[in-house]
């Protein structure tokens, strides 16, 4: 069992503020999981705060097919079968059991 990645998401807040006091080993444990989560939260905040109101009558270009997000196979880019080949891109993480018998 790997013991390298023990920092869970809620610990991120502690590590963020304790950064200057962390030992090299503790900093090493600031793994990709944590960095990803912190980065995502910051990006989310920026996106919420940074958007300006664009009146509907000025949205002609952003409302065209190809500019909107759509579940439609015609208007969107989604290819359902590819989540089988790229398991990390599926939305739910997938409920695949046959791949690993003793994952825990």
């Amino acid at each position, binding site marked *: *069992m*790997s013991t390298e*990645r023990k920092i*869970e*998401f809620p610990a991120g807040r502690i590590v963020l503020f304790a950064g200057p006091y962390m030992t090299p080993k503790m900093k090493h444990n600031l793994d*990709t*999981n944590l960095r*990803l*989560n912190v980065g*995502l939260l910051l*990006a*989310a905040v920026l*996106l*919420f705060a940074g*958007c*300006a*109101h*664009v*009146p*509907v009558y*000025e*949205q*002609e*270009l*952003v409302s*065209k*097919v*190809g*500019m*909107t*997000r759509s579940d*439609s*196979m*015609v*208007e969107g*880019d989604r*290819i*359902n*079968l*590819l989540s*089988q*080949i*790229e*398991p*990390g*891109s599926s*939305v*739910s*993480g*997938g*409920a*695949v*059991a*046959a*791949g*690993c*018998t*003793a*994952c*825990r």
Partner: protein
Amino acid sequence: MGLAWALLFAVVPLGYGFTPVNMESGVEWVDADDISLLQVSWGEDFETGTWESSVSLAFGHYGMDYQPVPFDFQGEETRRSERNLSLQFNTRNQVNNHTWIIAGAGVYDGYTNYRSVWLDEYYRQQYSELFGFPGAENYVEADPKGINGTAGVRWSYLSGSGFAELNVSRLRDDVSPGYEIDFDGLRRGELTLATAAISLSTENVLSKRVRSFFEVRASKTTARSTRYGAEFALNVAMGENWVSRWNVGGATEDPQFDAYYGGVALEYQANDNLSWFVDARYYEDTGEIENALLFTSAAPGLISNRFGIGLRWIGDSWSSRLYVAPLDTNYEPTRESTDFFQNLYLDRDWTVFQFAVGRSL
């Protein structure tokens, strides 16, 4: 059977006053030398009052030439084919000018991916006839199927230009289980997996030319750690006729799975109806958890690349999309514990084909 379901779900809503709005049908085909994946889908959108609903039906077929590794003395070459049928219903209701409530439910019967089919064949050949061996009774014939349900809310926090959406999902999957064997006998993995998932997304019109989408999500499946994921996409209208679409995303799951991907598409509108586009995508992951007793089917690290080209035609009533792409997948070499799965985690050159047609009703 599938046709009967389709007719049932297409006709029944009409009896309750739903007005059909759009209908869409599509074919996806992803093919390599030894594996072929096919999905045929059909969907219809309905409206009544403040309700917008959709129903979709999909039929999948997986075919593969199963090839064991040369040192698998129990294994034998065989041709394996499996089918999958799924049905999904989604609806949303506008409760006021800024808020929608969302609900959805779905059901499927059959394998959900080719990897499960390959592994099921491997386990069948290895463990289905272990007469007298400890744990032999643990082997079961797989009967994969599942259900899902979703509830959510969508909020327009900036009228027409800023949206946030929260969705919570529950899934229950009867899966093709994994097995491990050692001197204590044969052990079986979970037969049924429960998954809880939550996602929060925002969509913003940032300017007259830029639309953004950002999503964070987390999911927890039985006997696994929580998987976190995120995706950011930016659609940019570079001119009256040029559009570029960018996206990056990633996922991580303890103890050691990380995935990253990114892509870009460039689309040119040649006339009022016809557009062509090209796209490229890169995907990389670190491989899955690997802490089995002796052998594990966990996938090694993967890098895949895709370059595609397509056409989109939008008419007054009919519309269609055609897309073709080569896709190559490159796995890291298997280790001692995964050597029996060398032919599953084989580098492959895939061809991706998609054709869809829609009609406004």
